[in-house]
């Protein structure tokens, strides 16, 4: 394989991480569609995508387990890059500069910016909430072990976490569309030097230093 590239590129995600991410992403989409189908009558037609109401009810929790297990690996790989630093709080204070594309005014960013880090924590918390409440309301296997009050609370918690997660993922997907060049990082694994320099300068220095060694 040729090691020469047309443009200077940095590897942002190894193949294993990319595959891991897309297993989580695909299961998330299936879960959101099947979950919304059972949440709001106006969206019940989405059960047709899964072979009808009973199949949607059967599949949803199993897909949920796939997502949680896949995310455990992804989270284990990425968490240390997502620890909040003092510069991240400054970044958040300048959120107006962020949304207005005035990136030069912002503090330099490592592999992840504060928004991405908060998203990471939102996902972790939501997944814990969804997993625990999901087990409680899994009628076929586990609901029998819990009192009806606990099941009622879990139903509400499951819906709440699901909405927070869906909104968070919409922001995540939009950010990938908004910041051009991001999608390629997760599909092909690489970003251009310019992209890394502009959006994640501290990481750019770190990664290029490592590459030259």
């Amino acid at each position, binding site marked *: 394989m040729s090691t020469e590239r047309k*443009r*200077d590129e940095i590897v942002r995600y190894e193949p294993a991480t990319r595959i891991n991410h897309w297993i989580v992403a695909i299961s998330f989409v299936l879960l959101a569609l099947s979950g919304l*189908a*059972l*949440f*709001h*009558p*106006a969206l*019940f037609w989405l*059960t047709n995508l899964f072979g*009808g*109401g*009973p199949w*949607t*009810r*059967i599949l949803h929790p199993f897909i949920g387990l796939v997502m949680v297990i896949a995310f455990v690996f992804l989270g284990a790989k990425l968490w240390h890059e997502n620890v909040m630093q003092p510069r991240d709080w400054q970044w958040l204070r300048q959120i107006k500069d962020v*949304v*207005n*594309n005035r*990136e030069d005014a912002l503090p330099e960013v490592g592999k992840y910016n504060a928004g991405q880090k908060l998203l990471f924590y939102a996902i972790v918390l939501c997944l814990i909430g969804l997993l625990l409440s999901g087990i409680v*309301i899994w*009628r*076929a296997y586990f*609901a029998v072990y819990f009192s*009806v*009050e606990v*099941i*009622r*609370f879990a*139903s*509400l918690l499951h*819906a*709440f976490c*699901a*909405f927070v997660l*869906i*909104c968070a993922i*919409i*922001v995540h*997907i*939009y950010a990938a*569309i*908004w*910041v*051009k*060049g991001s999608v390629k990082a997760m599909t092909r694994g690489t970003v*251009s*030097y*310019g*992209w*890394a*320099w*502009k*959006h994640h300068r501290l990481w*750019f*220095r770190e990664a*290029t*230093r490592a590459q030259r060694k």
Partner: protein
Amino acid sequence: MALQSLDIIRRSATTLPEPQARGAHAGQVAKLIDVSKCIGCKACQVACMEWNDLRDEIGTCTGHYDNPHDLSDQSWTLMRFAEYENPKGDLEWLIRKDGCMHCADPGCLKACPSPGAIVQYANGIVDFHEENCIGCGYCVTGCPFNVPRISKKDHKAYKCTLCSDRVSVGLEPACVKTCPTGAITFGSKEDMQQHAAERIEDLKSRGFDQAGLYDPAGVGGTHVMYVLQHADQPQLYSGLPENPKISAMVGLWKGISKPLGLLAIIATAAAGFFHYIGIGPNETDEQDEEAARRELEKTP
């Protein structure tokens, strides 16, 4: 059990009203269970099994007369035997025929996510249409009386139908027909309330000062009502809830959170879309590539 000869006025997971033209102008129906007249013979359980072709497993004795020991997909009604020692020191045997209460405001119907799996007829009967049931068990979560049961065989929800198939052709429910003491009666809700009032008067004259009708307002009233000797303490009757209503958590889950949740999703997506239209993408251009290369050349 599907029964189209009765008019459906409410359907689960349906956002628009059902056809309203045909009402129950002769009055809604009700079953009245007079606990003070019940002798615990379980004929109603047998009649229910016979009419609905249900056969529960032979259970084991758990030390009391309840048999089977709980409602199930095969046992839609059940005599619950409670031994109560009254303040005078006498033993009272309070035998309550448990089963669906057919609430005017049914928690099961509110919680059900599958369109038409739970319906309410104009005459007040709440019925499960198992062909639409997806087996999620939300009806169990929503019910204030712990009535619906999910079958382990087909994962469908079952409960008393108030013999909607019999009622629709002018017959009384099977349990009513068979009751040898007249403890279970059936008719229009108004007639049953009147009948209950007479029974309560009689009970009061016999020293049951707190006798009364159990028709809880928290669920809009029920189409199965009890005459209780101790209406001030319904929990004596094997835990009959004192003030049943749809749990606030179920109300929140199946009420305001539905539109709010969808609104949040739509608002988030719209915010993204309009940000893209208004402010636009954040792109990396040749200048950035150039700057990156310059910085690399500077660093040793």
